[in-house]
């Protein structure tokens, strides 16, 4: 949807956003809002199915290699996963708050909540970076490249240290990196969208009559949170 000014009167800050951002193929802001929402929900439905394929891969490998999954999840630090769960829930509250601020025309609250959402998203990736780098540094890679170092094996519970390292350990981590990686890409995209929203909010583009982008990005962000809600227990807790 074009965000350029057109039609109704002279473009500029003085024109209310609900006039500047009404696309010419919509009768009014209400039909524009409802159409955008439906389009976005269809996109979110396709995202659920997109991740569905990876959940199938997880389910099949877990059902057939139960002992491997039990063993492998000890390489993941549940505290890091729990911290990121809290961070993402916090960012979701902040995203929902930004929609509320936009609906009420609270400019300052909108800018602050958008910024907070971006910061928490960044924090999620920082935690993820520490997790990934710790694993890769210790040879916990995907597929056949997964060769755990003596150091990380020594950090496992004593009962597991007695067991031989499963030869297909990398299979679990292929699934782990694919699922968390695809989720991480969604977080990066979300951060880009929040930078864009912050720039537009700073320009004063949003008002109670026009907040479609704030709402749409927040809905996307909540879906990213929702996927993590499933990834956390399935990968870290088992």
């Amino acid at each position, binding site marked *: 949807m074009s965000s350029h000014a057109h039609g109704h009167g002279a473009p500029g800050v003085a024109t209310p956003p609900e006039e500047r951002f009404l696309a010419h193929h919509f009768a009014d802001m209400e039909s524009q809002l409802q159409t955008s929402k439906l389009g976005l929900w269809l996109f979110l439905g396709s995202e659920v199915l997109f991740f569905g394929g990876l959940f199938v891969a997880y*389910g099949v490998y877990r059902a057939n290699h139960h002992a491997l999954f039990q063993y492998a999840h000890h390489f993941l630090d549940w505290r890091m996963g729990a911290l990121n769960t809290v961070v993402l829930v916090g960012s979701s509250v902040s995203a929902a708050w930004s929609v509320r601020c936009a609906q009420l025309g609270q400019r300052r609250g909108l800018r602050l909540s958008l910024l907070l959402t971006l910061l928490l998203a960044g924090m999620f990736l920082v935690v993820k970076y520490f997790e990934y780098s710790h694993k890769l540094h210790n040879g916990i890679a995907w597929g056949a490249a997964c060769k755990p170092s003596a150091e990380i094996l020594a950090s496992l519970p004593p009962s597991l240290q007695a067991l031989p390292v499963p030869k297909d350990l990398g299979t679990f981590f292929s699934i782990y990196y694919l699922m968390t990686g695809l989720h991480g890409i969604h977080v990066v995209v979300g951060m880009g969208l929040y930078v864009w929203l912050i720039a537009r909010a700073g320009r004063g583009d949003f008002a109670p009559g026009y907040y479609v982008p704030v709402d749409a990005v927040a809905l996307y962000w909540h879906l990213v949170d929702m996927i993590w809600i499933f990834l956390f227990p399935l990968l870290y807790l088992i």
Partner: protein
Amino acid sequence: MIEHTPSSAASPEHGTHVMPPSVLLGTAAALMALTVITVASSRVDLGEWNVVVALAIASTKAALVALFFMHLKYENRFQLVVLVSAALFAALFVAFVMFDTIQYQPDIRAAETQAVPRGS
């Protein structure tokens, strides 16, 4: 920066639902509590039921996010139909592949361990 008049702030477009702070914070508190419960439940050995409990808690959390953060509770029902049907088809996908793999994997294992010649 031109701040708009409070009159436009007081009356958001009709058809929109502004979430009260109490609902947003209440939902967040419920999500945090469920995160603690899911971690605690994973410490108790329930065998195969651990994953069922974990998925039940995760589904509850996802429902809370959808209903309140994504304000589905207050939206046009069609939006709910889109999300629920996508989730149902994803569940159907997982369930049918699981039936299939559980059905055939023991045969594959048996064939592998006995090294049955092909075609027999």
